[in-house]
Protein backbone atom coordinates (compact mmCIF):
# COMPACT_ATOMS: atom_id res chain seq x y z
CA UNK A 1 0.00 0.00 0.00
CA UNK A 2 1.21 3.48 -0.79
CA UNK A 3 -0.17 6.60 0.79
CA UNK A 4 -3.12 8.66 -0.34
CA UNK A 5 -2.27 11.56 1.96
CA UNK A 6 -5.76 13.09 1.88
CA UNK A 7 -6.25 15.72 4.55
CA UNK A 8 -9.93 16.34 4.11
CA UNK A 9 -12.24 18.16 3.95
CA UNK A 10 -13.56 16.44 7.05
CA UNK A 11 -16.70 18.40 7.61
CA UNK A 12 -20.27 17.95 6.48
CA UNK A 13 -21.94 14.58 6.20
CA UNK A 14 -20.03 11.55 4.97
CA UNK A 15 -21.12 8.01 4.29
CA UNK A 16 -20.01 4.60 5.47
CA UNK A 17 -18.44 2.81 2.52
CA UNK A 18 -20.12 -0.56 2.20
CA UNK A 19 -19.50 -3.57 0.03
CA UNK A 20 -22.61 -3.39 -2.22
CA UNK A 21 -21.60 0.12 -3.34
CA UNK A 22 -17.90 -0.43 -4.01
CA UNK A 23 -18.21 -0.77 -7.77
CA UNK A 24 -20.47 2.25 -8.22
CA UNK A 25 -18.36 4.48 -5.99
CA UNK A 26 -15.16 3.35 -7.73
CA UNK A 27 -16.55 4.75 -10.99
CA UNK A 28 -16.56 8.23 -9.48
CA UNK A 29 -17.30 10.01 -6.23
CA UNK A 30 -21.03 10.83 -6.19
CA UNK A 31 -20.57 14.04 -4.19
CA UNK A 32 -19.79 12.53 -0.79
CA UNK A 33 -17.27 14.69 1.12
CA UNK A 34 -15.68 11.72 2.87
CA UNK A 35 -16.15 8.03 3.49
CA UNK A 36 -15.66 5.88 6.54
CA UNK A 37 -14.26 2.36 6.43
CA UNK A 38 -13.48 -0.36 8.95
CA UNK A 39 -9.83 -1.42 8.61
CA UNK A 40 -10.79 -4.96 9.60
CA UNK A 41 -12.74 -5.24 6.36
CA UNK A 42 -9.75 -4.31 4.23
CA UNK A 43 -6.58 -5.41 6.00
CA UNK A 44 -5.36 -8.85 5.03
CA UNK A 45 -7.95 -9.13 2.28
CA UNK A 46 -7.27 -9.45 -1.42
CA UNK A 47 -8.92 -9.99 -4.76
CA UNK A 48 -11.06 -7.97 -7.09
CA UNK A 49 -13.28 -6.21 -4.53
CA UNK A 50 -10.30 -5.44 -2.36
CA UNK A 51 -8.57 -3.77 -5.30
CA UNK A 52 -11.74 -1.81 -6.00
CA UNK A 53 -12.11 -0.47 -2.47
CA UNK A 54 -8.42 0.38 -2.30
CA UNK A 55 -8.80 2.53 -5.40
CA UNK A 56 -11.57 4.47 -3.63
CA UNK A 57 -9.53 4.82 -0.44
CA UNK A 58 -6.61 6.13 -2.45
CA UNK A 59 -8.76 8.60 -4.35
CA UNK A 60 -11.14 10.05 -1.74
CA UNK A 61 -10.94 11.43 1.81
CA UNK A 62 -11.47 8.61 4.30
CA UNK A 63 -11.97 8.24 8.04
CA UNK A 64 -11.20 4.92 9.71
CA UNK A 65 -13.44 3.32 12.31
CA UNK A 66 -12.41 0.07 13.96
CA UNK A 67 -14.57 -2.79 15.13
CA UNK A 68 -12.36 -5.34 16.77
CA UNK A 69 -9.81 -3.88 19.16
CA UNK A 70 -11.96 -4.61 22.22
CA UNK A 71 -10.70 -1.48 23.92
CA UNK A 72 -12.38 -2.30 27.23
CA UNK A 73 -11.31 -5.93 27.17
CA UNK A 74 -8.36 -7.66 28.77
CA UNK A 75 -6.79 -9.53 25.87
CA UNK A 76 -3.48 -7.94 24.88
CA UNK A 77 -3.52 -5.88 21.71
CA UNK A 78 -1.97 -7.78 18.81
CA UNK A 79 1.24 -5.89 17.90
CA UNK A 80 1.19 -7.28 14.37
CA UNK A 81 -2.34 -6.02 13.84
CA UNK A 82 -1.49 -2.59 15.27
CA UNK A 83 1.42 -2.40 12.85
CA UNK A 84 -0.88 -3.25 9.95
CA UNK A 85 -3.38 -0.70 11.21
CA UNK A 86 -0.72 2.00 11.35
CA UNK A 87 0.15 1.25 7.74
CA UNK A 88 -3.51 1.41 6.78
CA UNK A 89 -3.93 4.76 8.52
CA UNK A 90 -0.97 6.08 6.54
CA UNK A 91 -2.45 4.66 3.33
CA UNK A 92 -5.85 6.26 3.84
CA UNK A 93 -4.52 9.48 5.33
CA UNK A 94 -7.21 9.30 7.99
CA UNK A 95 -6.58 12.16 10.44
CA UNK A 96 -7.75 10.04 13.39
CA UNK A 97 -8.86 6.52 14.18
CA UNK A 98 -11.94 5.64 16.22
CA UNK A 99 -13.08 2.57 18.13
CA UNK A 100 -15.95 1.74 20.44
CA UNK A 101 -16.07 2.16 24.20
CA UNK A 102 -16.88 -1.49 24.75
CA UNK A 103 -15.39 -4.95 24.88
CA UNK A 104 -15.82 -7.65 22.29
CA UNK A 105 -13.30 -10.34 23.28
CA UNK A 106 -12.69 -12.36 26.43
CA UNK A 107 -9.92 -14.90 27.06
CA UNK A 108 -8.83 -14.73 23.43
CA UNK A 109 -12.26 -15.53 22.06
CA UNK A 110 -14.06 -12.81 20.13
CA UNK A 111 -17.79 -12.24 19.81
CA UNK A 112 -17.65 -9.68 16.97
CA UNK A 113 -20.23 -7.71 18.97
CA UNK A 114 -19.98 -4.41 20.84
CA UNK A 115 -20.64 -5.43 24.44
CA UNK A 116 -21.19 -2.92 27.25
CA UNK A 117 -18.65 -2.15 29.93
CA UNK A 118 -19.60 -2.23 33.59
CA UNK A 119 -20.03 1.40 34.64
CA UNK A 120 -17.66 1.17 37.56
CA UNK A 121 -14.56 3.02 38.70
CA UNK A 122 -12.49 -0.12 38.13
CA UNK A 123 -13.70 -0.22 34.52
CA UNK A 124 -12.86 3.47 34.13
CA UNK A 125 -9.28 2.92 35.33
CA UNK A 126 -8.87 -0.15 33.17
CA UNK A 127 -10.27 1.50 30.03
CA UNK A 128 -8.15 4.61 30.53
CA UNK A 129 -5.02 2.43 30.61
CA UNK A 130 -6.08 0.58 27.47
CA UNK A 131 -7.04 3.73 25.55
CA UNK A 132 -3.77 5.40 26.50
CA UNK A 133 -1.87 2.35 25.30
CA UNK A 134 -3.65 2.51 21.96
CA UNK A 135 -3.06 6.24 21.68
CA UNK A 136 0.63 5.67 22.34
CA UNK A 137 0.82 2.98 19.66
CA UNK A 138 -1.20 4.64 16.91
CA UNK A 139 0.22 7.32 14.61
CA UNK A 140 -2.94 9.47 14.70
CA UNK A 141 -5.26 10.76 17.45
CA UNK A 142 -7.52 8.09 18.90
CA UNK A 143 -11.26 8.52 19.46
CA UNK A 144 -13.73 6.48 21.48
CA UNK A 145 -17.38 6.12 20.51
CA UNK A 146 -20.27 5.83 22.96
CA UNK A 147 -22.21 2.63 22.23
CA UNK A 148 -25.77 1.42 22.48
CA UNK A 149 -26.44 -0.94 25.36
CA UNK A 150 -29.53 -2.79 26.46
CA UNK A 151 -28.58 -3.83 29.98
CA UNK A 152 -26.34 -2.56 32.72
CA UNK A 153 -23.53 -5.04 33.22
CA UNK A 154 -23.31 -5.52 36.97
CA UNK A 155 -23.87 -2.95 39.71
CA UNK A 156 -23.48 0.56 38.35
CA UNK A 157 -21.26 3.03 40.24
CA UNK A 158 -21.38 5.86 37.70
CA UNK A 159 -24.03 7.26 35.39
CA UNK A 160 -23.11 6.87 31.73
CA UNK A 161 -22.24 10.56 31.12
CA UNK A 162 -19.82 10.56 34.06
CA UNK A 163 -18.44 7.15 33.06
CA UNK A 164 -17.78 8.44 29.54
CA UNK A 165 -16.39 11.79 30.66
CA UNK A 166 -13.95 10.22 33.13
CA UNK A 167 -12.59 7.89 30.46
CA UNK A 168 -12.27 10.54 27.76
CA UNK A 169 -10.58 12.97 30.16
CA UNK A 170 -8.46 10.34 31.86
CA UNK A 171 -7.19 8.87 28.62
CA UNK A 172 -7.08 12.29 26.96
CA UNK A 173 -8.67 10.99 23.78
CA UNK A 174 -11.29 12.41 21.46
CA UNK A 175 -14.95 11.50 21.34
CA UNK A 176 -16.86 10.07 18.42
CA UNK A 177 -20.34 11.11 19.48
CA UNK A 178 -22.94 8.68 18.14
CA UNK A 179 -26.17 10.63 18.31
CA UNK A 180 -28.36 7.65 17.43
CA UNK A 181 -26.82 5.60 20.23
CA UNK A 182 -27.71 8.30 22.73
CA UNK A 183 -31.25 8.46 21.38
CA UNK A 184 -31.67 4.67 21.50
CA UNK A 185 -30.30 4.47 25.04
CA UNK A 186 -32.58 7.34 26.06
CA UNK A 187 -35.64 5.42 24.83
CA UNK A 188 -34.55 2.12 26.36
CA UNK A 189 -33.57 3.59 29.75
CA UNK A 190 -36.05 6.44 29.90
CA UNK A 191 -33.83 9.51 30.12
CA UNK A 192 -33.79 12.85 28.32
CA UNK A 193 -31.02 12.80 25.69
CA UNK A 194 -30.54 16.56 25.89
CA UNK A 195 -30.00 16.41 29.66
CA UNK A 196 -27.55 13.59 29.00
CA UNK A 197 -25.68 15.67 26.42
CA UNK A 198 -25.38 18.59 28.84
CA UNK A 199 -23.39 16.37 31.23
CA UNK A 200 -20.67 15.24 28.82
CA UNK A 201 -17.52 17.02 27.56
CA UNK A 202 -18.68 18.26 24.17
CA UNK A 203 -15.30 19.94 23.72
CA UNK A 204 -13.90 16.43 23.16
CA UNK A 205 -16.17 15.72 20.19
CA UNK A 206 -14.14 15.23 17.00
CA UNK A 207 -16.66 13.38 14.87
CA UNK A 208 -20.29 12.27 15.01
CA UNK A 209 -22.18 9.19 13.84
CA UNK A 210 -25.81 9.15 12.84
CA UNK A 211 -27.82 6.03 11.95
CA UNK A 212 -31.21 4.36 11.97
CA UNK A 213 -32.64 1.84 14.40
CA UNK A 214 -35.57 -0.55 14.77
CA UNK A 215 -38.02 -1.40 17.50
CA UNK A 216 -38.00 -5.07 18.52
CA UNK A 217 -40.63 -5.76 21.12
CA UNK A 218 -40.17 -3.36 24.02
CA UNK A 219 -36.64 -2.44 23.06
CA UNK A 220 -35.21 -0.14 20.43
CA UNK A 221 -32.28 -1.90 18.78
CA UNK A 222 -29.39 -0.11 17.12
CA UNK A 223 -29.60 -2.06 13.88
CA UNK A 224 -28.18 0.48 11.43
CA UNK A 225 -30.80 -1.11 9.24
CA UNK A 226 -33.30 1.70 8.65
CA UNK A 227 -33.30 5.36 7.64
CA UNK A 228 -32.46 7.92 10.31
CA UNK A 229 -35.64 9.17 11.96
CA UNK A 230 -36.45 12.86 12.35
CA UNK A 231 -35.99 13.02 16.16
CA UNK A 232 -32.42 11.80 15.76
CA UNK A 233 -31.74 14.44 13.10
CA UNK A 234 -33.28 17.02 15.41
CA UNK A 235 -30.96 15.88 18.19
CA UNK A 236 -28.03 16.33 15.81
CA UNK A 237 -29.27 19.82 15.01
CA UNK A 238 -29.54 20.54 18.74
CA UNK A 239 -26.06 19.37 19.66
CA UNK A 240 -24.01 20.72 16.74
CA UNK A 241 -24.17 24.38 17.83
CA UNK A 242 -23.30 23.32 21.37
CA UNK A 243 -20.19 21.61 20.05
CA UNK A 244 -19.51 24.90 18.30
CA UNK A 245 -17.39 23.46 15.49
CA UNK A 246 -18.32 21.93 12.13
CA UNK A 247 -17.36 18.41 13.17
CA UNK A 248 -17.93 15.77 10.48
CA UNK A 249 -21.03 13.62 10.74
CA UNK A 250 -21.03 10.12 9.30
CA UNK A 251 -24.18 8.35 8.14
CA UNK A 252 -23.92 4.62 8.94
CA UNK A 253 -25.93 1.89 7.27
CA UNK A 254 -24.93 -1.72 7.86
CA UNK A 255 -28.09 -3.79 7.41
CA UNK A 256 -30.82 -3.80 4.77
CA UNK A 257 -28.48 -1.62 2.78
CA UNK A 258 -30.45 0.21 0.08
CA UNK A 259 -29.32 1.24 -3.37
CA UNK A 260 -26.61 3.85 -3.39
CA UNK A 261 -29.01 6.43 -4.84
CA UNK A 262 -31.36 6.05 -1.89
CA UNK A 263 -28.54 6.34 0.60
CA UNK A 264 -27.15 9.38 -1.19
CA UNK A 265 -30.54 11.05 -0.96
CA UNK A 266 -30.65 10.38 2.78
CA UNK A 267 -27.14 11.74 3.15
CA UNK A 268 -28.12 14.86 1.22
CA UNK A 269 -31.11 15.45 3.51
CA UNK A 270 -28.92 15.19 6.60
CA UNK A 271 -26.34 17.45 4.95
CA UNK A 272 -29.10 20.00 4.42
CA UNK A 273 -29.96 19.90 8.12
CA UNK A 274 -26.26 20.18 8.94
CA UNK A 275 -25.76 23.18 6.63
CA UNK A 276 -28.88 24.78 7.98
CA UNK A 277 -27.70 24.66 11.57
CA UNK A 278 -24.12 25.61 10.69
CA UNK A 279 -25.36 28.74 8.94
CA UNK A 280 -26.62 30.09 12.26
CA UNK A 281 -24.05 31.71 14.57
CA UNK A 282 -23.15 29.25 17.33
CA UNK A 283 -24.14 31.39 20.31
CA UNK A 284 -27.54 32.07 18.79
CA UNK A 285 -28.16 28.44 17.84
CA UNK A 286 -27.19 26.99 21.22
CA UNK A 287 -29.95 29.00 22.85
CA UNK A 288 -32.55 27.56 20.52
Amino acid sequence: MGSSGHSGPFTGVGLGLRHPHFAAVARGNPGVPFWEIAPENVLGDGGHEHDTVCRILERDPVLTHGLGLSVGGFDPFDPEYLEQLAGFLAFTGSPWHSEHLCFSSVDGSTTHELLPMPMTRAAVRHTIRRARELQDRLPVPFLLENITYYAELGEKELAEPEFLAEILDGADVGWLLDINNIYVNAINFGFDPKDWLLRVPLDRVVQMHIAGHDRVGELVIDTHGAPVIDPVIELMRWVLPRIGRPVPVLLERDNDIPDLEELLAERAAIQEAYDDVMAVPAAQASHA
Partner: protein
Amino acid sequence: MLEASVLALQRSLVDAALMADAGPLERDPAGFAAGRGLPPGDQAAFVRFKDRLLVYRDPVRADLAEPVETICFVSRALLEQAGLWDECLAAFLASRGVRSAFYRDLAASFLGWLATTGWGRERWPFLLQLVHFELLNVLVAHHPGGDPPAGLHPRPALGDRLVLEVPTQVVTYQYQVHLATVQAPVPAPGTTHLLAYRDGTGLPQWLELTPATASLLLRAQQTSIGQAALDLGLTDLSEAVELLAQCQAKGAILGFAGTIPR
Protein backbone atom coordinates in the same frame (compact mmCIF):
# COMPACT_ATOMS: atom_id res chain seq x y z
CA MET B 1 -7.37 -6.25 41.93
CA LEU B 2 -10.65 -4.46 41.36
CA GLU B 3 -10.17 -4.87 37.61
CA ALA B 4 -10.76 -8.60 38.17
CA SER B 5 -14.36 -7.68 38.87
CA VAL B 6 -14.58 -6.12 35.40
CA LEU B 7 -13.18 -9.26 33.79
CA ALA B 8 -15.58 -11.48 35.74
CA LEU B 9 -18.52 -9.42 34.50
CA GLN B 10 -17.28 -9.57 30.92
CA ARG B 11 -16.85 -13.35 31.12
CA SER B 12 -20.36 -13.66 32.50
CA LEU B 13 -21.93 -11.69 29.68
CA VAL B 14 -20.08 -13.68 27.04
CA ASP B 15 -21.17 -16.88 28.78
CA ALA B 16 -24.75 -15.66 28.70
CA ALA B 17 -24.50 -14.97 24.99
CA LEU B 18 -22.62 -18.05 23.82
CA MET B 19 -23.60 -20.94 26.08
CA ALA B 20 -25.69 -23.44 24.15
CA ASP B 21 -28.54 -23.40 26.66
CA ALA B 22 -29.72 -20.08 28.07
CA GLY B 23 -31.79 -21.92 30.66
CA PRO B 24 -29.52 -21.33 33.67
CA LEU B 25 -29.69 -17.55 33.22
CA GLU B 26 -33.39 -17.59 32.40
CA ARG B 27 -34.32 -19.67 35.43
CA ASP B 28 -31.94 -18.30 38.06
CA PRO B 29 -30.07 -15.12 37.12
CA ALA B 30 -28.74 -14.60 40.64
CA GLY B 31 -27.41 -18.14 40.73
CA PHE B 32 -25.95 -17.71 37.25
CA ALA B 33 -24.05 -14.62 38.44
CA ALA B 34 -23.08 -16.14 41.78
CA GLY B 35 -21.74 -19.20 40.02
CA ARG B 36 -19.37 -16.95 38.14
CA GLY B 37 -18.02 -15.33 41.27
CA LEU B 38 -20.00 -12.10 41.03
CA PRO B 39 -20.83 -10.31 44.30
CA PRO B 40 -24.42 -9.65 45.50
CA GLY B 41 -24.66 -6.21 43.89
CA ASP B 42 -23.81 -7.66 40.49
CA GLN B 43 -26.14 -10.60 41.09
CA ALA B 44 -28.96 -8.13 41.70
CA ALA B 45 -28.17 -6.41 38.41
CA PHE B 46 -28.35 -9.75 36.63
CA VAL B 47 -31.78 -10.30 38.18
CA ARG B 48 -32.96 -6.83 37.21
CA PHE B 49 -31.64 -6.99 33.65
CA LYS B 50 -32.07 -10.71 32.98
CA ASP B 51 -34.34 -10.31 29.95
CA ARG B 52 -32.17 -7.60 28.45
CA LEU B 53 -28.98 -9.57 28.99
CA LEU B 54 -30.62 -12.39 27.09
CA VAL B 55 -31.24 -9.96 24.23
CA TYR B 56 -27.50 -10.10 23.51
CA ARG B 57 -27.75 -13.77 22.54
CA ASP B 58 -29.44 -13.01 19.24
CA PRO B 59 -27.02 -10.47 17.76
CA VAL B 60 -23.91 -12.19 19.07
CA ARG B 61 -24.97 -15.58 17.77
CA ALA B 62 -26.30 -14.21 14.48
CA ASP B 63 -23.10 -12.26 13.83
CA LEU B 64 -20.93 -15.29 14.43
CA ALA B 65 -23.16 -17.66 12.47
CA GLU B 66 -23.83 -15.48 9.43
CA PRO B 67 -20.58 -16.00 7.50
CA VAL B 68 -20.59 -19.72 8.28
CA GLU B 69 -24.16 -20.06 7.04
CA THR B 70 -23.46 -17.99 3.94
CA ILE B 71 -20.24 -19.68 2.90
CA CYS B 72 -21.02 -23.26 3.95
CA PHE B 73 -24.50 -23.38 2.46
CA VAL B 74 -24.23 -26.93 1.11
CA SER B 75 -22.97 -28.23 4.45
CA ARG B 76 -25.79 -26.34 6.10
CA ALA B 77 -28.33 -28.00 3.80
CA LEU B 78 -26.85 -31.39 4.64
CA LEU B 79 -27.14 -30.85 8.38
CA GLU B 80 -30.54 -29.18 8.12
CA GLN B 81 -31.86 -32.27 6.36
CA ALA B 82 -30.81 -34.19 9.47
CA GLY B 83 -32.19 -31.50 11.78
CA LEU B 84 -28.74 -30.93 13.26
CA TRP B 85 -27.52 -27.61 11.83
CA ASP B 86 -28.61 -25.56 14.83
CA GLU B 87 -27.05 -28.09 17.19
CA CYS B 88 -23.80 -27.99 15.24
CA LEU B 89 -23.70 -24.18 15.27
CA ALA B 90 -24.56 -24.05 18.97
CA ALA B 91 -21.71 -26.43 19.77
CA PHE B 92 -19.32 -24.34 17.67
CA LEU B 93 -20.37 -21.09 19.36
CA ALA B 94 -20.17 -22.63 22.82
CA SER B 95 -16.59 -23.72 22.06
CA ARG B 96 -15.50 -20.04 21.87
CA GLY B 97 -13.54 -21.06 18.82
CA VAL B 98 -13.53 -17.66 17.12
CA ARG B 99 -10.14 -16.12 17.89
CA SER B 100 -9.63 -13.72 14.98
CA ALA B 101 -10.71 -10.09 14.95
CA PHE B 102 -11.23 -10.44 11.21
CA TYR B 103 -14.83 -11.27 10.42
CA ARG B 104 -13.76 -13.05 7.25
CA ASP B 105 -11.91 -15.65 9.33
CA LEU B 106 -15.10 -16.93 10.94
CA ALA B 107 -15.77 -19.75 8.49
CA ALA B 108 -12.15 -20.84 8.78
CA SER B 109 -12.63 -20.97 12.55
CA PHE B 110 -15.63 -23.24 11.97
CA LEU B 111 -13.51 -25.51 9.78
CA GLY B 112 -10.81 -25.59 12.46
CA TRP B 113 -13.39 -26.47 15.09
CA LEU B 114 -14.74 -29.33 12.95
CA ALA B 115 -11.21 -30.63 12.41
CA THR B 116 -10.33 -30.43 16.09
CA THR B 117 -13.51 -31.85 17.55
CA GLY B 118 -14.46 -34.30 14.82
CA TRP B 119 -18.07 -33.16 15.19
CA GLY B 120 -20.30 -35.23 12.89
CA ARG B 121 -17.36 -37.18 11.44
CA GLU B 122 -18.76 -40.60 12.26
CA ARG B 123 -22.04 -39.96 10.46
CA TRP B 124 -20.60 -37.78 7.69
CA PRO B 125 -16.95 -38.72 7.12
CA PHE B 126 -16.85 -36.21 4.24
CA LEU B 127 -18.16 -33.22 6.23
CA LEU B 128 -14.76 -31.69 6.90
CA GLN B 129 -13.79 -31.93 3.24
CA LEU B 130 -17.12 -30.48 2.14
CA VAL B 131 -16.69 -27.46 4.40
CA HIS B 132 -13.09 -27.13 3.25
CA PHE B 133 -14.17 -27.00 -0.39
CA GLU B 134 -16.85 -24.39 0.34
CA LEU B 135 -14.32 -22.27 2.17
CA LEU B 136 -11.72 -22.79 -0.55
CA ASN B 137 -13.76 -20.73 -2.99
CA VAL B 138 -13.74 -17.78 -0.60
CA LEU B 139 -10.08 -18.13 0.27
CA VAL B 140 -9.12 -18.14 -3.39
CA ALA B 141 -11.34 -15.14 -4.17
CA HIS B 142 -9.98 -13.11 -1.26
CA HIS B 143 -6.37 -14.26 -1.10
CA PRO B 144 -4.21 -11.19 -0.52
CA GLY B 145 -1.65 -12.38 -3.06
CA GLY B 146 1.94 -11.28 -2.89
CA ASP B 147 4.77 -9.78 -4.87
CA PRO B 148 5.27 -11.77 -8.08
CA PRO B 149 8.78 -12.97 -8.81
CA ALA B 150 10.53 -11.13 -11.62
CA GLY B 151 11.62 -12.55 -14.93
CA LEU B 152 8.76 -14.93 -15.64
CA HIS B 153 7.74 -15.62 -19.20
CA PRO B 154 4.30 -16.54 -20.47
CA ARG B 155 4.99 -19.67 -22.56
CA PRO B 156 6.24 -22.86 -20.94
CA ALA B 157 9.39 -24.66 -22.10
CA LEU B 158 10.41 -28.08 -20.89
CA GLY B 159 13.35 -26.67 -18.96
CA ASP B 160 11.14 -24.22 -17.03
CA ARG B 161 9.47 -24.66 -13.71
CA LEU B 162 6.02 -23.23 -13.24
CA VAL B 163 4.99 -20.53 -10.79
CA LEU B 164 1.37 -20.61 -9.68
CA GLU B 165 -0.61 -17.45 -9.05
CA VAL B 166 -0.46 -16.95 -5.28
CA PRO B 167 -4.19 -17.70 -4.70
CA THR B 168 -4.08 -20.90 -6.78
CA GLN B 169 -4.44 -24.15 -4.87
CA VAL B 170 -4.06 -27.77 -5.96
CA VAL B 171 -6.21 -29.82 -3.59
CA THR B 172 -7.16 -33.46 -3.24
CA TYR B 173 -10.34 -34.75 -1.61
CA GLN B 174 -11.51 -38.28 -0.97
CA TYR B 175 -15.04 -37.33 -2.00
CA GLN B 176 -16.50 -35.47 -4.97
CA VAL B 177 -17.27 -32.48 -2.80
CA HIS B 178 -17.24 -30.13 -5.78
CA LEU B 179 -20.36 -31.83 -7.15
CA ALA B 180 -22.41 -31.60 -3.95
CA THR B 181 -25.35 -29.21 -4.07
CA VAL B 182 -28.02 -27.92 -1.72
CA GLN B 183 -30.43 -30.39 -3.28
CA ALA B 184 -27.97 -33.29 -3.18
CA PRO B 185 -25.46 -32.42 -0.46
CA VAL B 186 -23.97 -35.90 0.02
CA PRO B 187 -20.87 -36.22 -2.17
CA ALA B 188 -20.02 -39.54 -3.77
CA PRO B 189 -16.80 -41.15 -2.59
CA GLY B 190 -13.89 -40.97 -4.99
CA THR B 191 -10.48 -39.34 -5.04
CA THR B 192 -10.84 -35.90 -6.57
CA HIS B 193 -8.06 -33.54 -7.63
CA LEU B 194 -8.99 -29.91 -8.14
CA LEU B 195 -7.19 -26.82 -9.30
CA ALA B 196 -8.79 -23.83 -7.57
CA TYR B 197 -7.86 -20.45 -8.98
CA ARG B 198 -9.03 -16.89 -9.44
CA ASP B 199 -9.99 -15.96 -12.97
CA GLY B 200 -9.38 -12.67 -14.74
CA THR B 201 -12.52 -11.11 -13.29
CA GLY B 202 -11.58 -12.08 -9.73
CA LEU B 203 -14.07 -14.92 -9.41
CA PRO B 204 -13.06 -18.26 -7.90
CA GLN B 205 -13.05 -21.15 -10.34
CA TRP B 206 -11.99 -24.78 -10.25
CA LEU B 207 -10.86 -27.36 -12.73
CA GLU B 208 -11.00 -31.08 -12.14
CA LEU B 209 -7.58 -32.62 -12.73
CA THR B 210 -6.41 -36.10 -13.53
CA PRO B 211 -4.08 -37.57 -10.90
CA ALA B 212 -1.16 -37.17 -13.32
CA THR B 213 -1.92 -33.53 -14.03
CA ALA B 214 -2.30 -32.74 -10.34
CA SER B 215 1.05 -34.36 -9.68
CA LEU B 216 2.64 -32.45 -12.55
CA LEU B 217 1.33 -29.13 -11.24
CA LEU B 218 2.75 -29.85 -7.82
CA ARG B 219 6.06 -31.34 -8.92
CA ALA B 220 6.84 -28.82 -11.68
CA GLN B 221 6.94 -26.05 -9.10
CA GLN B 222 10.03 -27.68 -7.63
CA THR B 223 11.78 -29.07 -10.69
CA SER B 224 11.65 -28.49 -14.45
CA ILE B 225 8.48 -29.33 -16.32
CA GLY B 226 10.36 -31.87 -18.44
CA GLN B 227 11.90 -33.59 -15.44
CA ALA B 228 8.59 -33.60 -13.59
CA ALA B 229 6.88 -35.18 -16.59
CA LEU B 230 9.61 -37.81 -16.87
CA ASP B 231 9.39 -38.57 -13.15
CA LEU B 232 5.67 -39.10 -13.54
CA GLY B 233 6.09 -41.29 -16.62
CA LEU B 234 4.28 -38.87 -18.89
CA THR B 235 5.32 -39.62 -22.42
CA ASP B 236 3.38 -36.99 -24.34
CA LEU B 237 5.20 -33.88 -23.17
CA SER B 238 3.58 -31.61 -25.72
CA GLU B 239 0.21 -32.39 -24.15
CA ALA B 240 1.57 -31.43 -20.73
CA VAL B 241 2.98 -28.18 -22.04
CA GLU B 242 -0.31 -27.35 -23.74
CA LEU B 243 -2.23 -28.02 -20.53
CA LEU B 244 0.07 -25.72 -18.59
CA ALA B 245 -0.39 -23.00 -21.20
CA GLN B 246 -4.17 -23.35 -20.82
CA CYS B 247 -3.91 -23.07 -17.03
CA GLN B 248 -1.80 -19.97 -17.49
CA ALA B 249 -4.39 -18.45 -19.84
CA LYS B 250 -7.14 -19.07 -17.26
CA GLY B 251 -5.19 -17.25 -14.58
CA ALA B 252 -4.13 -20.24 -12.47
CA ILE B 253 -0.44 -20.03 -13.38
CA LEU B 254 1.47 -16.80 -13.02
CA GLY B 255 4.19 -17.73 -15.47
CA PHE B 256 7.25 -19.83 -16.07
CA ALA B 257 10.69 -19.40 -14.63
CA GLY B 258 13.83 -20.01 -16.64
CA THR B 259 15.94 -23.13 -16.56
CA ILE B 260 16.75 -24.39 -13.11
CA PRO B 261 20.50 -24.56 -12.60
CA ARG B 262 21.72 -28.13 -12.22
